[in-house]
């Protein structure tokens, strides 16, 4: 069985390498190869889902007692996550076959997808932090490559760079956290961690609980980067420069969720109780909460269909992080699971719309698509409902759990945030839905749109089914990475979520149903939302001043002082002194004789009188 797992890991890599080295000329073949490998991995992931498997590892680097291993952690957590990754992955591959049909660098695109599948598989099945870190970086790379797929466009190239760098900042903390945790516990492996802590109170195990807490928070910094939590969220909206299927796969369903996955992994390894004794763990929940709120507010004023979805993703990721921060990783993971399906659905749906509208992304230039693209309309609608948490869709169950855990832990502030976000979510999603799909066509492109082909709508349909059903116990129990079924009951969370739905839906209907332009466009508060609270500008300033100015100053000092004054000074001094000695060499014999006499006096003085 573990051989199959290795195949899951290796196959996409093989596909990527084959495409890169051998199949550059045959673009279609590479596309089929990548899709085929994705399909095989999906099948294999389903096969290994049930049976018990043992973990095997390969020594990657060995120095004395230190062993860094590449291995596979084949527990239900990883296997469940594998279903999400390979499932969404395969469907996105399938969708891409049509979406990227005419792209001139199709083989590069599919190579990147395969590379991503490989890296993501690695993260999911990693049994230790170092291996996870390696693949963590590799998904960053594939994300970089895919965002920058159309690198001739300046915006795409810049977005790719921004994504990589922002992630690097997160990884800076991540690595420190890993190192510290390694120092404290002496292990990298998740098994090792759970052995070390074993549910005990941390005070008896480690010299300083504060240091341990700091290390956890630093590891969380990695998740902040990857899962785009404030203040490192800025890269994700820009990442929409990539092809839409990539946004669906990487920047909605899987990779960005890796942060949540990793934190859940960490929490379950150390043990939620132990974590509960640590200091500052609320920070994580609050960062999640703030992110989800900010992102939801920003989403309300975006016009680009992908941007709206991107902010919505941010917001939902914040939700998940909040759940993890509330010591309920199960809720977070469950939301991750359901969210993966319906967000992939939404993105692919938007991809279909964009494709049909000839790469028009502005929702104000769409409209009336429900008639032109009925299947897309329907599936997108299901996705929207699921995202809004409409009762008995998948999103409803998972969101419910998160609200539940906020209520359970008596974090009423966070609960309020979560409820507000739920309300906002409904608001902006319905805004999108009303403007893009209902009403009348507002542009030629929308006018000429027609339903996409089966390669595109089949994935949409499958995802729509999952968006409806994946919240139910019979599916979630088997497929979701971590699932803790709680009986449904009417309580504060339920009331909150229903009222959020109603309020948000009403406001949205009031404002946007059949609207021709945005009635809130001139509201100054909304301008702030539209401009993302000016955070990007702020960062640009900070980077400009802090990094580039410091760099310029340092460079200047380096050139002037070290190179110019000290080094140049010494060499000039040497030459100058040489010339002074040369001047003594006047050529005049009497001068020589006089200096000779002086030399004699010096020699006599130094010999006889100085010891």
């Amino acid at each position: 069985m573990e051989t199959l797992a290795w195949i899951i890991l290796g196959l996409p890599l093989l596909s990527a390498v084959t495409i890169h080295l051998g199949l550059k000329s045959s673009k279609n073949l590479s596309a089929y190869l990548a899709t085929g490998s994705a399909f095989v991995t999906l099948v294999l992931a389903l096969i290994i889902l049930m049976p018990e498997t043992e973990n095997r590892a390969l020594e990657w680097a060995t120095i004395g007692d230190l062993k860094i291993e590449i291995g596979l952690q084949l527990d239900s957590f990883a296997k469940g996550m594998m279903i999400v990754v390979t499932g969404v992955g395969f469907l996105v591959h399938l969708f891409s076959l049509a979406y990227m049909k005419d792209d001139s660098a199709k083989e590069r695109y599919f190579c990147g997808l395969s590379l991503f599948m490989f890296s993501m598989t690695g993260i999911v099945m990693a049994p230790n932090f170092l291996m996870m870190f390696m693949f963590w970086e590799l998904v960053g790379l594939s994300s970089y490559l895919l965002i920058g797929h159309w690198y001739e466009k300046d915006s795409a190239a810049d977005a790719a760079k921004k994504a990589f760098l922002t992630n690097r900042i997160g990884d800076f903390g991540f690595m420190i956290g890993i190192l510290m945790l390694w120092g404290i516990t002496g292990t990298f492996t998740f098994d090792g961690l759970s052995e070390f802590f074993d549910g005990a109170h941390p005070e008896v195990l480690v010299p300083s609980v504060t240091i341990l807490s700091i290390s956890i928070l630093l590891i969380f910094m990695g998740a902040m980067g990857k899962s785009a939590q404030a203040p490192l969220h800025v890269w994700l909206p820009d990442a929409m420069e990539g092809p839409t299927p990539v946004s669906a796969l990487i920047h909605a369903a899987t990779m960005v969720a890796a942060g949540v996955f990793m934190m859940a992994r960490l929490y379950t390894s150390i043990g939620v109780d132990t974590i509960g004794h640590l200091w500052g763990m609320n920070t994580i929940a609050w960062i999640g909460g703030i992110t989800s709120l900010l992102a939801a507010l920003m989403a309300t004023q975006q016009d680009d269909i992908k941007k709206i979805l991107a902010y919505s993703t941010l917001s939902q990721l914040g939700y998940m992080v909040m759940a993890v921060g509330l010591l309920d990783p199960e809720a977070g993971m469950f939301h991750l699971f359901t969210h993966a399906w319906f967000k992939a659905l939404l993105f692919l749906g938007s991809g279909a719309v964009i494709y049909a509208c000839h790469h028009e992304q502005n929702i104000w230039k769409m409209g009336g698509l429900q008639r032109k693209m009925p299947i897309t309309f329907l599936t997108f609608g299901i996705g929207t409902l699921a995202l809004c948490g409409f009762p008995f869709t998948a999103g409803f169950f998972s969101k419910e759990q998160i609200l539940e855990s906020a209520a359970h832990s008596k974090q009423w502030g966070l609960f309020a945030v979560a409820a507000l976000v739920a309300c906002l979510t409904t608001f902006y999603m319905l805004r999108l839905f009303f403007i893009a799909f209902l009403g009348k066509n507002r542009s030629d492109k929308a006018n000429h749109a027609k339903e996409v082909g089966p390669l595109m709508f089949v994935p949409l349909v499958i995802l729509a089914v999952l968006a409806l059903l994946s919240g139910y116990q019979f599916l979630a129990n088997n497929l979701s990475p971590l699932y803790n079924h709680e009986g449904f009951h009417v309580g504060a969370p339920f009331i909150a979520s229903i009222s959020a739905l109603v309020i948000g839906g009403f406001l949205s209907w009031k404002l946007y149903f059949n609207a021709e332009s945005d009635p809130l466009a001139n509201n100054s508060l909304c301008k702030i939302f539209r401009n993302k609270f000016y955070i990007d500008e702020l960062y640009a300033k900070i980077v400009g001043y802090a990094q580039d100015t410091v760099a310029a100053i340092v460079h200047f000092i380096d050139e002037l002082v070290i190179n110019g004054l000290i080094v140049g000074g010494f060499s000039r001094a040497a030459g100058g002194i040489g010339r002074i000695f040369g001047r003594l060499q006047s050529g005049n014999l009497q001068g020589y004789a006089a200096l000779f006499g002086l030399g004699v006096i010096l020699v006599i003085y130094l010999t006889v009188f100085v010891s």
Partner: protein
Amino acid sequence: MIPAHFLEAFVLISALALLMFEAFIPSRHKTLIAIGSIGVLVFSLVLLFFAKAPDPTNSEMARFYAWDASAKFFKGFTLLAGILTLALGLDYRKALSKFTANPESEDGTGEYYCLILLATAGMMWMASAKDLVSLFVSLELSTITFYILVAYMRRNVGSLEAGVKFLILGALSTGFLVYGISWLYGASGSTELSAIGASITEANSTYLLFGLALILVSLAFKVGAVPLHLWIPDVYQGSPTPTTSFLSIASKASGFAISLRVLEPFLNSPVTHDKTVTILSILAGATILVGNLAAIPQTNFKRLLAYSSIANAGFILLALAAWDKGSDLTSAQIVGFYLAIYLIMTFAAFFILSTIHRNTGSEEISAFEGLGTRNPFLALMTTVVMAAMAGVPLTAGFYGKFFSFEAGVQASLWVPISIGFIGVAAGFYYYFQIIRAMYWRKSFDESPIKVRPLSLYVLITLTSLLIIFGFFPQPILWLLQAA
């Protein structure tokens, strides 16, 4: 086996005999004198290996004449230097005759070779001098001969100017030498160096040191140590090139040979050791600094070599200052080692200089421009020689500085060593200027540069030796230890 002092006598008599013959040899055959002189020196060199100490019962000779490893080494050194100088002179005779009696013929060149023999004899004697009298006489024999050698090109203003400067300053230093000798004699009652060493006490040490200081002035003059180095650049530049090479190699070496003999008693005596080391390290530091830094702005290659010879004297003085503190080689051995390598590379440099001069008529560094294309092989050899002079490892040139530094470090002479760092770095700069000129720069004149066969063979031998000794320096040590 013949008594060693017969060698000097042989060279001296041969010189006089050749001088006599010279008068009867037609102008076009003057080279015979040179070949004869070389023959004499080669023969003496061979005899050197079969020489023995003077008969100890002959006390008047044994008192003045030392026969030990150092004497042997420096005699061989001088002989070799004489042979190479003569070889250089052979290729230089065009220029020599141009500025002497009859520019059209080689009339004026014959005496030159004989004078080299005379100077060689004097310096061979210096290597064995262990009494102040023999030291003085042999020193003057070589110095006075050098006055003539320097001023030899009597129609050349530069040569004459150099001759006069050398004459006046040399005579000045002689004055200090004898005055110093008289004080040493007065304070110790003897002219024998070993007796002087034995007589050192707290009471007379001041007088002895005063005498030593005066002699040191003269010795510093001879080896070109700062502050008495002022004659060197002018005299080296003005002299005929073979004289310059002889002066900078053999004369400097014999200066160090007698320095070793004079300083040894003072360095070995606990009373005067510290003061002697102090003055020597001050001299060493100053010499390294001035020699190297003043070389930086030079544009004339010959003058550059003059400063380089000052700089090298500084490194040798450093080894002297670290008197026998090193665990490996004695200071005397280091001096010998350094000079042996110095001989090889400096002669190579002078052969190159003379070749360039003959082809381009210039001794400026700019005359080397384009050598990399004009004669790649010569350029390659020049590169090796310059690398050796700069002290790049794996050329023999490295070992001299290496041993000096080793001795200095072991004696904890940190100040002169730090100056030595600066000196070596500066050395890289000015020696590499030649390499730069050869390869980086293009010359207007692209005509090939021709090397005379004799020069070529000598140069090939010398550069190969530089590389061979760079990897395998033991043979020099064997020579130094062959007692």
